[in-house]
């Protein structure tokens, strides 16, 4: 049975606090996992649910619904934030967990476009929106819950555990996807195996719900509830009172928007860039990201703890500045490492072709495979599939060409280091930000007030990085330059981080841990 805290329940210490943190973090981690498997599996979902001859168009369609998941996050923040300030943190983020679990599990079960037609993409979009709503309510609750249990002078360190969950959730999603793909093989994974990571989520959600049911309410919330200080209308109080609205705007434009673009550039755009522009093989990309995340994750705690000592502001600003200064050279180096414009070792390469004829239609499919080995040890494999229709009156299709690059060992480690650097910036901006947001707002409207700027900054400014960057690259494509400028996409995160850095440096208080110290 959950324990009922007394109104004067003190902040926890030692194992009591760690159990609170672990219990909250596991649920939040699973929610991030649920949310990110969709993004990671976007190309597979595109094939199954968004019919299009052009794979890029279907990929963009999937990214579009990926964006839909981000755009609704602020609405989830408003809806569940309000509930959290009215009825409590514990039950609200229990509801968000169940909603997320049901949506994710259902995505794994929806039949494809081939089976149920347009209903399939419609249902996927709907479930994706529900995922976004659930996540919108989850994070603010978890961060608030942990912060309200932690001692004020260690709030950055303890909320740092919650901050690891987004990245570790991404790591977990990558590991489950790699494991499933390796076990089932490429064809089975592409056909139906991609559903497994969605369905597996149900088991993890069940465990998290069990853990959360055993948790007690936040002591600070309980205290203001018993003293009759709860807000009657948290939405009105948060966004119509100038004193609070100005802090919401400051949090958004002075910290969270920049944090959001650094977070998504360092992880999701790096992954998308390696996939679609560097053409690195699917599993290799995931391993690079996974190893970089494993090395990077402890720094969330390091920068969280450091922010308790020297303040949150300058650590976050330094992360943004480093991103602005180094993104272009980092991504130029990533391109150079994976480039195929290098000297080839001709005797190690090979060319092969297979011709298949469909006995029913007499259509022929020619699959030509060209393997190239380069002097730096990289290997590329180009598979060109040409379909020749027997009926000459029909329009012949263009050949499909798929290129995959495998990196040499030294290039693999160099690429991992470049991604790790970006994740280090992520830990600088993201490690202290939960404590920063919690401290900016009073307990009675904290869940609502901190959730909205977080999900606009992280979800919209940040979540749309892969979408907008892909679009920006596509605008540079011309007949003379069919690949466009591959670095053009970086303009967006660098610009947002730049504006945020200036506003944050000028306006944010150096220390936020004493803004509402009378409450603690």
């Amino acid at each position, binding site marked *: 049975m959950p324990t009922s805290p007394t109104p004067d329940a003190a902040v926890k210490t030692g194992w009591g606090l760690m159990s609170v943190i672990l219990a909250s973090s596991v649920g939040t981690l699973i929610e991030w996992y649920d949310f990110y498997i969709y993004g990671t599996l976007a190309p597979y979902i595109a094939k199954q649910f968004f019919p299009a001859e052009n794979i890029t*168009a279907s990929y963009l369609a999937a990214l579009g619904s990926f964006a*839909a998941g981000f755009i609704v996050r602020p609405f989830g923040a408003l809806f569940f934030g309000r509930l959290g300030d009215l009825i409590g943190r514990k039950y609200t983020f229990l509801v968000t967990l169940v909603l997320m679990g049901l949506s994710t599990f259902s995505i794994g079960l929806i039949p494809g476009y081939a089976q149920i037609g347009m209903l399939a993409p419609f249902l996927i979009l709907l479930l994706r929106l529900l995922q976004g709503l659930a996540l919108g309510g989850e994070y603010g609750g978890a961060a608030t819950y942990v912060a309200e249990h932690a001692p004020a002078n260690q709030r950055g360190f303890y909320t740092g555990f919650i901050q690891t969950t987004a990245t570790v959730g991404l790591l977990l999603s990558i590991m489950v996807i790699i494991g499933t793909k390796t076990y089932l093989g490429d064809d089975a994974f592409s056909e139906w195996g991609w559903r497994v990571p969605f369905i597996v989520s149900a088991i993890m959600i069940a465990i998290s719900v069990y853990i959360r049911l055993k948790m007690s309410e936040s002591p600070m919330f309980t205290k203001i509830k018993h003293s009759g200080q709860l807000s009657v209308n948290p939405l009105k109080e948060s966004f119509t009172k100038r004193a609070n609205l*100005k802090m919401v705007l400051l949090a*958004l434009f002075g910290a969270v928007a920049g944090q959001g673009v650094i977070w998504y550039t360092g992880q999701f755009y790096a992954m998308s860039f390696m996939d679609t522009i560097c053409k690195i093989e699917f599993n290799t990309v995931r391993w690079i990201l996974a190893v970089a995340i494993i090395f990077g994750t402890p720094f969330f705690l390091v920068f969280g703890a450091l922010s308790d000592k020297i303040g949150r502001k300058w650590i976050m600003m330094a992360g943004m500045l480093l991103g602005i200064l180094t993104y272009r050279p980092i991504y130029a180096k990533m391109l150079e490492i994976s480039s195929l414009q290098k000297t080839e070792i001709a005797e190690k390469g090979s060319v092969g072709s297979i011709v298949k004829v469909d006995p029913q239609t007499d259509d022929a499919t020619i699959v030509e495979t060209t393997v190239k080995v380069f002097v730096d040890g990289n290997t590329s494999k180009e598979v060109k599939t040409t379909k020749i229709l027997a009926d000459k009156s029909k329009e012949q299709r263009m050949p499909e060409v798929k290129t995959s690059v495998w990196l040499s060992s030294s290039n693999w480690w160099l690429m991992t280091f470049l991604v790790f650097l970006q994740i280090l910036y992520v830990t600088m901006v993201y490690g202290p930000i939960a404590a920063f947001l919690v401290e900016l707002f009073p307990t009675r409207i904290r869940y609502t007030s901190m959730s909205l700027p977080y999900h606009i900054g992280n979800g*919209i400014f940040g979540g749309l990085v892969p979408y907008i960057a892909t679009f920006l690259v596509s605008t540079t494509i011309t007949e003379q330059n069919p690949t466009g400028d591959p670095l053009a996409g970086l303009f967006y995160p660098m610009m947002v981080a730049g504006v945020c850095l200036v506003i944050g440096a000028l*306006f944010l208080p150096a220390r936020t841990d004493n803004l509402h110290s009378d409450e603690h």
Partner: protein
Amino acid sequence: MNVVKKMSGIICILLSLAAIWFLFTRAGAELSAANVKPDKKIFWYSILPVYVPLMFGLALFGYYALKGEYDSLEQ
């Protein structure tokens, strides 16, 4: 410092207006072209309703900065 804050408030207002103008002119040019690709339509119909209100938010932030609402925050 407060003068710098007020000036940056004006810059934020101008920046937000410039961003709104850019978004509408760019979207207008791309969507009015012949044979607009579906991905471009999806892009602009997603971006405009999201970013235009956010730019108004930036302008409001600039207005508050100009009015000295943030001057009392300790550095």
